[in-house]
C-alpha cells in the first residue's frame, strides 16, 4: 500500500495494531517512498478552552486544536457574561471551571492532530503523534493513523512522506496506555521532539515521562504557574536537558530592539551608566520579564544582589563590578484584552545617568504601542535625552514559532537562554524565600 498524496481520513485502529500497520505502510516496492528521513514530533494538544466551548455549544465543532479568532471572541464574551474581570486570561482556571459546568454529553467530531500549519508540515516530519486528552474523564484510548505527503508548489521532486498518529482519551488513559503506544512508535534513528502545547501545571506524570525520555522539549513558560514553570526549567537545566521555550522565543523582538538601540558605537557608553530599569508586563506572571532582565544583566556583567516583592511590583537590585547599584522593577499591569500567554512584556524603560544634570542623562523607552511609551515617559523622563521605539507585540502563531525551532535548532539550549535561566531561577528562589 502506498501512502496517499493528500491527507487521508485517519483510520481508527486498535492501538495494538498501529505499529504493524505503519511498518507495512512503509514497506513498498518503491524505495523512494520509505518515509521522510527527518524527525518525529509528539504534540501534547489539550485545547481545553476549545473543547469546553464546543461541548457547551458556544461554538460549532469540530474540535481542531487551533486557537482561532472565533474561539477568542466567544471566550471573551463568556467572560463578560459571567461577570468575570475583564483582565481574565483565556486559560484562567476559574474560567475553565465555569465552562466545564453542565457540559453536554454529545459527541463532537475531534480533528485534533489532523491539521498542522503548513510551516510545520513543509518540514516533512516523519512521524507526527498527537496526544489529545478529552474532557470526559472516563473515555478510553482511541487511536487513529494516517499517511500524508505534503505537496509543494515549487518542488518537482518526489514528495517526502510521513505518517500521523492521534492518541485520544482521558488524561488517565493516556498515562496508562498512551505512553506505551508512543514508546512502540518511536523511531530510534531520528531525532524526536515533544511540543507541550498546554499548561506545564497539567498532567505532570506525562510531562515527567517525556522529560526523562531524551526528547528535545518545546515548552511555553507563559502557560502554567510561574513556580511550576521555573521548577521545570531548573530540573531540565540540572539534568542537562535541552530547553526550547516559546516564552523566550517571543522575547526576540524586545531583545533585538534593545540591542539595535546600542548598535551605533556612539550610544554604547550609555550602557555603562544604567541606574534604573522598569519592565511593564501584562498580568501577573513574571517569568518573561525575569528572562529579559536576566539576559540584560548577564550581557552587561551585573551580579544579582536582592529582590523585594510588594503588591504593585517586584524590585530586583543588581550590582556592577565597580560596586554601583542598578534598581530594576517588574510592574504587572492589568490589561483588558489579555492574550493567552500570560505576563508578556509590554514596556521597558532604561535610565542611564552620567551627571546630576538631567539633560545630560539618557532614557531609553521601548513600548508595545505608543500609549505604553507615553506612560513610561511620565515623571520627567523628557528632561533627559529620550530614545523611544515602538516594539510591535504582534506575535506569530505558536505553530510558526515551533516550526522555526524545528528548522533552526539542533536541539541544544541557546547559550543566551541558558545564562538567563540561571539568573531568573536565582531571583525567583530568592523572591520566594
Amino acid at each position, binding site marked *: 500500500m502506498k501512502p496517499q498524496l493528500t491527507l487521508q481520513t485517519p483510520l481508527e485502529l486498535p492501538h495494538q495494531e498501529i505499529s504493524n500497520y505503519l511498518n507495512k505502510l512503509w514497506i513498498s516496492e518503491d524505495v523512494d517512498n520509505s518515509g521522510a528521513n527527518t524527525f518525529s514530533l509528539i504534540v501534547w494538544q489539550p485545547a481545553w478552552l476549545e473543547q469546553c466551548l464546543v461541548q457547551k455549544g458556544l461554538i460549532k465543532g469540530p474540535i481542531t486544536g487551533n486557537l482561532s479568532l472565533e474561539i477568542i471572541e466567544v471566550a471573551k464574551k463568556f467572560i463578560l457574561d459571567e461577570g468575570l474581570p475583564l483582565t481574565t486570561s483565556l486559560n484562567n482556571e476559574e474560567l475553565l471551571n465555569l465552562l466545564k459546568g453542565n457540559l453536554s454529553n454529545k459527541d463532537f467530531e475531534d480533528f485534533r492532530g489532523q491539521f498542522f500549519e503548513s510551516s510545520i508540515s513543509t518540514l516533512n516530519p516523519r512521524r507526527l503523534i498527537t496526544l489529545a486528552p478529552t474532557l470526559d474523564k472516563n473515555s478510553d484510548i482511541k487511536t487513529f493513523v494516517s499517511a500524508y505527503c505534503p505537496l509543494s508548489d*515549487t518542488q518537482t521532486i518526489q514528495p517526502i512522506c510521513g505518517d500521523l498518529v492521534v492518541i485520544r482519551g482521558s488524561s488517565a488513559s493516556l498515562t496508562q496506555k498512551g505512553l506505551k503506544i508512543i514508546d512502540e512508535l518511536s523511531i530510534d534513528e531520528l531525532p524526536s521532539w515533544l511540543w507541550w502545547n498546554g499548561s506545564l501545571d497539567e498532567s505532570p506524570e506525562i510531562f515527567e515521562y517525556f522529560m526523562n525520555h531524551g526528547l528535545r522539549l518545546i515548552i511555553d513558560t507563559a502557560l502554567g504557574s510561574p513556580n511550576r514553570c521555573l521548577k521545570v526549567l531548573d530540573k531540565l537545566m540540572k539534568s542537562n536537558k535541552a530547553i526550547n521555550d516559546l516564552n523566550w522565543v517571543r522575547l526576540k523582538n524586545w*531583545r*533585538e530592539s*534593545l*540591542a539595535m538601540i*546600542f*548598535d*551605533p*558605537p*556612539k550610544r*554604547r*557608553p550609555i*550602557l*555603562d551608566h544604567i541606574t534604573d530599569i522598569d519592565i511593564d508586563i501584562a498580568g501577573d506572571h513574571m517569568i518573561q520579564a525575569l528572562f529579559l532582565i536576566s539576559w*540584560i544583566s548577564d*550581557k*552587561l*556583567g551585573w551580579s544579582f544582589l536582592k529582590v523585594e516583592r510588594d503588591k504593585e511590583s517586584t524590585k530586583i537590585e543588581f550590582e*556592577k*563590578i*565597580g560596586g554601583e547599584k542598578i534598581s530594576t522593577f517588574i510592574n504587572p499591569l492589568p490589561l483588558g484584552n489579555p492574550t493567552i500567554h500570560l505576563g508578556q512584556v509590554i514596556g521597558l524603560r532604561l535610565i542611564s545617568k552620567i551627571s546630576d544634570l538631567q539633560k545630560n542623562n539618557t532614557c531609553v523607552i521601548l513600548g508595545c504601542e505608543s500609549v505604553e511609551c507615553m506612560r513610561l515617559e511620565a515623571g520627567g523622563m523628557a528632561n533627559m535625552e529620550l530614545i523611544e521605539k515602538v516594539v510591535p507585540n504582534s506575535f506569530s502563531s505558536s505553530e510558526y514559532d515551533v516550526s522555526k525551532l524545528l528548522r*533552526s535548532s*539542533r536541539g541544544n539550549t*541557546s*547559550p*543566551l537562554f541558558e545564562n538567563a535561566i540561571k539568573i531568573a531561577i536565582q531571583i525567583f528562589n530568592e523572591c520566594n524565600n
Partner: protein
Amino acid sequence: MPSTLGNPLRLGLRQERVISPQTLVIFGASGDLTHRKLIPALFELYLQRRIPSEFGIVGCARRPWNDNEFREKMKVKLFNQISGKEKEWEEFSNYLFYEPVDLQQSDHLVRLSKRLNEIDKTQATHGNRTFYLSVSPNFYASGCKALKAAGLLDDPKKSRLVIEKPFGRDYSSAKKLNKIVQSCAEESQIYRIDHYLGKETVQNILVLRFANTIFEPIWNRNYISSVQITSSETVGVEDRAGYYESSGALRDMLQNHMTQMLAVTAMEPPGKFEPEAIRNEKAKVLQASKLADENEPWNSCIRGQYGEGGNISNRLKGYRQEDGVHCNSTTETYIATKIFVDNWRWQGVPFYLRTGKRLPKRLGEIVLTFKDVPVHLFESTIINPAPNQLILRIQPNEGATFKFEVKSPGSGMKSRPVEMEFSYDESFGEPSDEGYVRLLADAMLSDPTLFTRSDEVEAAWKLYTPLIELMDNTPWKLPIHNYESMTWGPPESDQLLSKDNIFWRRP
C-alpha cells in the same frame, strides 16, 4: 567591566543558519586562495560557532603533504589571524586533513574517495560533501569530469561543487564549460562563485530596494537619468602578471563582478526571496542588456593601460615595465563601457561601468543620478542645482549617501546641495564578514541565491562578445589608451560620458 567597544547586547543575538555536518574538499589547497581566503573564512565561521562539530576540511593538491604538514603550513600562513586565538586554532585545525591528489590521475580520485569515506566515519559527516575547485581554470572541465567518474557527484542532495571565476574566457567557452559541468552534476549542485555577491553592501542593494517603499517607485527611467558603477584599485598587477596578461580588466572584473552589480541594481523585484526567483530576475536583466552602440561597439568602450606615475620618492612602474608583462602588451588594465538595459524599466538610461588598476582610490560604488527638476525656481549657490544622487558605497566606508538640494541659509532663496549619510560603521560599529565567509557558508548550506547560474554567466559573456571580438580580430578599433598611474584612467573615458553631457563622479 563589559567593553563598550562592541555592543554587549548584540553578542549571541544573531541567529545564523546552521551548517549541516559535512566535509569540504578544497582542490588547489596549496594555492594562494586557500590560505588567503578560504581557510581564514572557515576559521572565522568556526569562531562564530557556525561550523558543526561533525565537520572536516580536506585539502587536496599535488604536493605530497600529510595532515600535519597541511595544518602547519596553514598555521604559518594565517599567523596574523590566529594571533590571540591560538587555542581556537588548535581546536579548529583538528578539522583539517590533507590528501595528495592530481585531478588528472583517476587512481588519485579513487584514493580520495576512500579517504573521504574514512573521514565520514571519524567525523560523522554522513557522506555530505562540498567540493571546491580552487584550481587553474584550465582544469575546471577535467576536474569536474574526474569527480564525476569517481562517483563523487552522484548524489545531488549530498554533493555540491563550487567553481571559482573566471568561468570561461568568452561566450562560447563559457557555454562549452557549462555543458561539461552540467553533464557531471545537476545545476542545483553547481555554485559558480563571484565573491562580490558575498559582500554585505552588494546584498544590501536588494534590501534597500525591496524592503523600502520609497525607492522602488522612482527606481526607473522616469526618474533616473544615468547609473555609474565603479570599481577601482590602487594596486597594479603585482605578482599576477601571468594570469592578468591573458585576462585583462574585461575578463577579470567587468564581465563578472561589475556585471553582477549591474544585475542587482537593475533587476525587477522577485516574486519571492528564493534563489531561483532572484536568479531569474538577474538573468532577465542581463539578457536585456546590450552595449550602447552594438553596430559600432568601439563607441561604447574605452580601454586603458597604466603608464608610469608616482613622484620622485616613489616612482611607479608602468604596466609594460612590470615583471612578467610583455613589453608591448596590449592587455587593458582599465575599461569603461556604456550599456543600455532594453526593458520597460530602464529604456534609454545609460549604465556606465568602469574598473581599473592604479587608480587614485580603492573603492566600489554605484551612483544613481536622478533627473533634473523640470523648472528651476531657485537660484543655486553654485552654477546649476546639482541633480539628486543616491550613492551606494560598496567599499570602503560601506554605506549610502543621498544628495539633495536645500535652502542655503540667508535672506535669499538660493539652493545648495547637502548630503544625507548612512554608514555601516556608524550604525553598526562592527566589520562585516569577508565575502568568502558568507559564500562558503551558503554553499555548504545549499543556498545558491548568491551564486551565478549558467544562464547568467552566459548572458554576461554574450553582452561583451562584440568587444571581445574586436579585441581579438580588429584590436586597432579598440585601442589601448595610456594613463598615468594614480589618475582616474585615460582622458578618452571622460569623452564616453561627456557626449551625453555627463561626467564621471570623482569620489
